[in-house]
């Protein structure tokens, strides 16, 4: 499977206290890749590097088979980008912003842009400076989609938008992907939202890629298990231990495991432990536990 985005050994120092280190991203072509991470993890910095807006200290980047930054102009003609902060010129009207964008993108689809504009209820003569946050968000996604990109890079596209508008924005993006098979790289900390749409996830924390895998694998068999008298080591466990924490009010521990199946209870029975509770976890819980575990290892 080819990758729409591929980075190898990417290093970048943004400040004295923050750096991206040895970032190896693999975003499969045609996937909807959720780029997760807490605030300040380096998601937007990574996107700036991908789009050639900052130069890495070392490492390589390829977008749609084009080397970045050398072939950035050619790559950008096939990339729709929605930045974290809206970047269109506030003095323009919506139609002027569309015409401006169209002039730079050869694949601009004017009729589809108009349909999107009508669907989003964006009046053509309204000035951008007078738009609400939600309307600006819709305009951003309109501009990114109407250029018919092969790769959509969305940096917190729905952050701060109300649920109705979030749904509109995501629906428009997903319709486009369903129609064209484009790749989507979406950065967000709204994990529940990504859980519904993504098929791949990458987790970034403090500039390190903590995990990268298909969503099903990420969530697959993720369970929280409360155990009494747990074994000291889980080296021979049939599942993958993500984290283990002592219970503050008892002798037991809470384990977060991946790849759990019911017959694995025997593992605890054999080691003299007692499983008191096994509960499902959603993506957000897995994400939080993964970060906790990764930070504990780093310390």
């Amino acid at each position: 499977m080819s990758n729409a985005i591929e980075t190898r050994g990417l290093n970048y120092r943004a400040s004295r206290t923050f750096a991206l280190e040895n970032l190896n991203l693999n975003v499969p072509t045609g996937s909807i890749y959720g780029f997760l991470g807490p605030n300040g993890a380096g998601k937007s910095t990574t996107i700036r590097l991908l789009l050639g807006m900052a130069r890495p200290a070392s490492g390589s980047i390829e977008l749609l088979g084009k080397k970045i930054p050398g072939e950035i102009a050619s790559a950008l003609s096939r990339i729709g980008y929605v930045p974290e902060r809206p970047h269109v010129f506030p003095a323009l009207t919506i139609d002027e912003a569309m015409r401006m964008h169209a002039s730079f993108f050869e694949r601009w689809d004017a009729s589809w842009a108009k349909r999107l504009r009508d669907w989003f209820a964006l009046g053509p003569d309204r000035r951008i400076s007078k738009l609400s946050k939600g309307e600006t968000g819709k305009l951003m996604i309109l501009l990114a989609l109407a250029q018919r990109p092969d790769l959509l890079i969305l940096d917190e596209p729905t952050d701060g938008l109300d649920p109705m508008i979030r749904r509109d924005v995501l629906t428009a993006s997903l319709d486009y992907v369903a129609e064209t098979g484009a790749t989507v790289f979406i950065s967000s900390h709204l994990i529940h939202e990504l859980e519904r749409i993504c098929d791949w996830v990458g987790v970034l924390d403090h500039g390190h890629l903590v995990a990268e895998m298909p969503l099903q694998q990420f969530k697959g068999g993720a369970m929280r298990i409360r155990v009494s008298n747990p074994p000291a080591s889980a080296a021979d466990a049939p599942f993958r231990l993500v984290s283990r924490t002592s219970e503050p009010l008892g002798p037991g521990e809470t384990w977060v495991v991946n790849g759990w199946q019911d017959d694995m209870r025997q593992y605890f029975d054999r080691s003299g432990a007692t499983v008191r509770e096994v509960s499902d976890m959603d993506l957000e819980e897995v994400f939080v536990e993964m970060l906790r575990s990764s930070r504990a290892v780093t310390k």
Partner: protein
Amino acid sequence: MSDMYRQLLNLHWKTVRWPLAPVILLAFGLPLFVLRLADVFGPAGTRVPPAMVIHMQGEWSFVFPFLALITGVMIALTAWSWDHQGRHVYALSLPVSRGRYSMLKFAAGMTMLLLPVIALAVGTMAGLAATPVPTGLHAYPLSFVARFLLAATIVYAATFAAASSTVRTTAIILVLFVLVVIFGTVFVSFLQEALHDHSIVTPIELLYTALARWPGPFNVFGGNWLIIDA
């Protein structure tokens, strides 16, 4: 005319139109005012002496390089103002090279710059039509307008280049430049004293010579700004 250029021209027009309006008015009115001044305040009922025409223009000629300076700086700064506010993200996400984007912006700004130049040309022609040129003197409207265009273009180009960078980079360059000039001057003064040779030029003198003396780019500001001359 490419569509990109047209769109950037529209964007620049929307940004600059209000501050540019008084400049256009001044560019039209000032030559008219300066030319009419000698005629109005000349001896009643007689022809204005050539020396007075030149003197009156000379008194006011400083306004034209000043206007050229304001025009160039204003148009260059407004060319980049929205890009700076958006941290250049929009421009950097477009599928054109940075050089091409800058050239398109520069061309759009040059088009804007023509508006006050045209106003100046119209004002000059109107002033000359209303003012008799004394015997022995000649009108030089074309060279006057060309001088204004050249001066405004030089300032525009210099400011455009400086403003195209981020504020941080511009500040670093300016600070380094000032430091080189200051330390260079101190060092050359020290050398002059040590070698008893005052023919060694300081960086300030060197800079002045390179920029303001012919064929330096800013020489045009110090030249003759008279519309009617001998």
